């Protein structure tokens, strides 16, 4: 075989592999959407679930998923921002930094069901918070922190060194340079990472089964006082999310149309995650243009 033939063979092989990957993805997406979308209706999206059979709409679960996502991000973004800035700019290259990096790597490879059980034992049982939005949000934070920290660190490190020198040479402090010069340039990458991790958090189930719980008590959407027990904003109420609902309907759903219900809920979940991915791209590109080019 000569070089040209080898090259041809390699090109064919690579193309086939890529086609297989893309094909599987499209098959999965199409299957979920085609089997689920016909059962999605407005009353399904906004209705409440019968707590015994699991039949009915997913309104509360959908809200719970978003609420949990917002809470998780509120907790994890500030922490990972601090950790990312520290690792990218302040950490010296020594054993302590290596230890922190390995700790983050280990944390990111923890199975989510282990994170869930840990959250269950610590927050739900030990701290007696019970199955609640806040327990779920903290468990998801553990799950989310390593990835976000890594993403922020990498976005910051990608900013050229000479930008830091420019700031310092003008007599700006390191902190001022970091916040005013480096962070804005890194922002598009950070935002993209945050939105992508939001998609992961949104679809997470295993870590939530034991922390946020598997029940979606009917909430009063007219009551926005987070202190009230029936308020959707109450962080101490149990909150079954969409992903947990799908799992539950599939394993112990008693409704006659359980298969259709889970297919429809899966389609909604997939669409939401696709929207996050799309949003990440659009927002990232927009911010990049905003920051680099002029307004």
């Amino acid at each position: 075989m000569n070089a040209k033939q080898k090259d041809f063979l390699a090109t064919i092989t690579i193309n086939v592999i890529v086609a297989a990957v893309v094909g599987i993805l499209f098959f999965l997406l199409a299957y979920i959407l085609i089997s689920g979308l016909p059962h999605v209706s407005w009353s399904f999206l906004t209705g409440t679930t019968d707590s015994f059979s699991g039949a009915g709409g997913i309104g509360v679960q959908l809200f719970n998923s978003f609420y949990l996502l917002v809470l998780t991000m509120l907790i994890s973004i500030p922490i990972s921002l601090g950790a990312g800035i520290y690792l990218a700019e302040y950490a010296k290259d020594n054993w302590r930094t290596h230890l922190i990096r390995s700790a983050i790597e280990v944390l990111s490879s923890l199975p989510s069901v282990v994170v869930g059980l840990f959250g269950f034992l610590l927050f739900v049982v030990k701290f007696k918070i019970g199955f609640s939005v806040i327990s779920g949000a903290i468990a998801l934070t553990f799950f989310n922190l390593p990835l976000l920290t890594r993403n922020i660190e990498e976005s910051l490190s990608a900013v050229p060194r000479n930008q830091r020198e420019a700031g310092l040479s003008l007599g700006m402090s390191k902190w001022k340079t970091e916040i005013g010069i480096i962070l804005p340039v890194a922002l598009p990458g950070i935002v993209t990472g945050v939105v992508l991790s939001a998609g992961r958090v949104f679809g997470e189930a295993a870590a939530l089964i034991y922390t946020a719980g598997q029940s979606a008590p009917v909430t009063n959407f007219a009551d926005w006082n987070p202190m009230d027990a029936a308020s959707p904003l109450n962080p101490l109420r149990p909150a079954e999310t969409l992903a947990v609902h799908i799992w539950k309907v599939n394993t112990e759903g008693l409704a006659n149309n359980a298969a259709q219900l889970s297919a429809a809920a899966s389609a909604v979940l997939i669409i939401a995650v696709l929207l996050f991915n799309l949003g990440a791209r659009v927002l990232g590109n927009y911010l990049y243009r905003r920051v680099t080019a002029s307004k």
Partner: protein
Amino acid sequence: MLKEYSFEKTAIQTFADNVPLALRTEDMQVFYGSNHAMHDASLSFPKNQITALIGASGSGKSTYLRSLNRMNDGIATVTGKIWYHDVDINEPDVNIYEIRRHIGMVFQRPNPFSKSIRENIIYALRAEGIKDKQVLAERVERSLRGAALWDEVKDNLDKSALALSGGQQQRLCIARSIAMEPDVLLLDEPCSALDPISTVKVEETLAELRKKYTIIIVTHNMQQAARISSQCAFFHLGHVMEYTPTATMFSNPQIPVTQDYISGSFG
């Protein structure tokens, strides 16, 4: 093979007491870890003149320059004294941020911020507490005029600085430095990434700036050193070998190593 030159034989000029000096180093040594990168550099820089630092790559001229406004803090260990207005600014308790406002720096590659032209200049000023819009606008115009960039950008001050050409970006970086109203301007090969036309513009700018500032410039380009500087320091393997008026250095170098470097028969 590089020829061996004696480091014993040097020709370093000093200045009479009545020549006002902007900056003076005394026995400056620089270490990168165990690597002794700069030996006993004792140089004086007269006010309102351009001094060029020349030498081959790795000769220590950039290292020396970056030590002058403490940009080597956290990177290298610098010992010896750096006298600025009778203060040794190499002392650990000196306010380095304050020092850098008095001793500005322009780097090899243009490094404007990813902000508008106006923001590039006023960002550091605002960080220093200057909020008055009129004062800021005036500083923008004055520094852009000083860097000979005003006429090219005055209608586009809100455009991104990254949309400028390389030469314009470098002049913007000079404008950004002089907006801080420093005493001394350090330039680290400011033209090495620029085309000849942009280089001429930057050189003209420097000749103009000399009236207000003391300029120390590192350059690889000997013609450039000959064109713009009043005196020249030649660095070789971490030693300052010769420091003489530019005319002397290029017509009548005092020691063999400088002769070989100037004539191009080096190494």
